[in-house]
């Protein structure tokens, strides 16, 4: 298993991308699978960066990735405010249009694009585990 800890800050997104690229290289993923995995990981991290640590500038994000047969797993942890992403409702595209393009699409997209999406809160940590079944 490979892990990474980063500050909960937009300036860390490139580190997260590099970490993913490093760990996925060996798997020779299809372009579409890689896109889905990268997009999902970044959307979840961006959500944490925006909302998990409203009063803490030193918040962190902890990442772990591993493979099991045809599945690639990503675990994303944070110590921020409790947030269960399974309960976010489907964004209404008409509402997003009215708001000029703003609205919570990221978590919704991740739920749709990944094949598995599990959340638990343990010892004041949000722990989200997502996986993608790789294309044959």
């Amino acid at each position, binding site marked *: 298993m490979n892990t990474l800890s980063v500050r909960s800050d*937009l300036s860390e997104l490139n580190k997260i991308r590099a970490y993913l690229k490093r760990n996925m290289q060996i798997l020779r993923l299809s372009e579409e699978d890689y*896109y889905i995995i*990268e997009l999902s990981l*970044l959307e979840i991290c961006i959500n944490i960066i925006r909302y998990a640590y409203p009063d803490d500038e030193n918040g962190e994000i902890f990442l772990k990735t591993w493979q099991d047969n045809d599945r690639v797993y990503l675990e994303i942890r944070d110590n921020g405010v409790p947030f269960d992403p399974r309960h976010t409702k489907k*964004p209404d*595209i008409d509402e*997003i249009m009215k708001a000029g*393009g703003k609205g919570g*699409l990221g978590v919704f*997209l991740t739920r749709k694009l990944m094949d598995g999406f599990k959340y638990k809160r343990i010892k004041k940590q949000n722990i989200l585990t997502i996986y993608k079944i790789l294309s044959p």
Partner: protein
Amino acid sequence: MEITVREKDDVAILDLKGEIRLSEHPEPILRDHVKREMDKGKRKLLLNFADLEFIDSSGIGELVSSYVSVKNAGGKLRIARVPDKIMLILKYTSLGNIIEVFDDEASALEDFS
């Protein structure tokens, strides 16, 4: 992301290359280009996605915002040549049902006329 603009009759064609994603220093580049074309009086805009490699939810937001501003000005915005992986995002966000998407540039241009 790089955007180059071509013209075909009264249609402004924006060729998008690279990535539309959130970063530490977000640049609303698509929206700016669309606004610039509208300021020039263009009301028919075609976005060519053939070389678009990545779009995230922030990029989708830019796309929606661009579409709304063109529509509110009485214009039309269409998309052509969407790679399969990007099409997935348009499908799951239902945006593909709102903004008309064409397989190729010629069909999109024909639809404008």
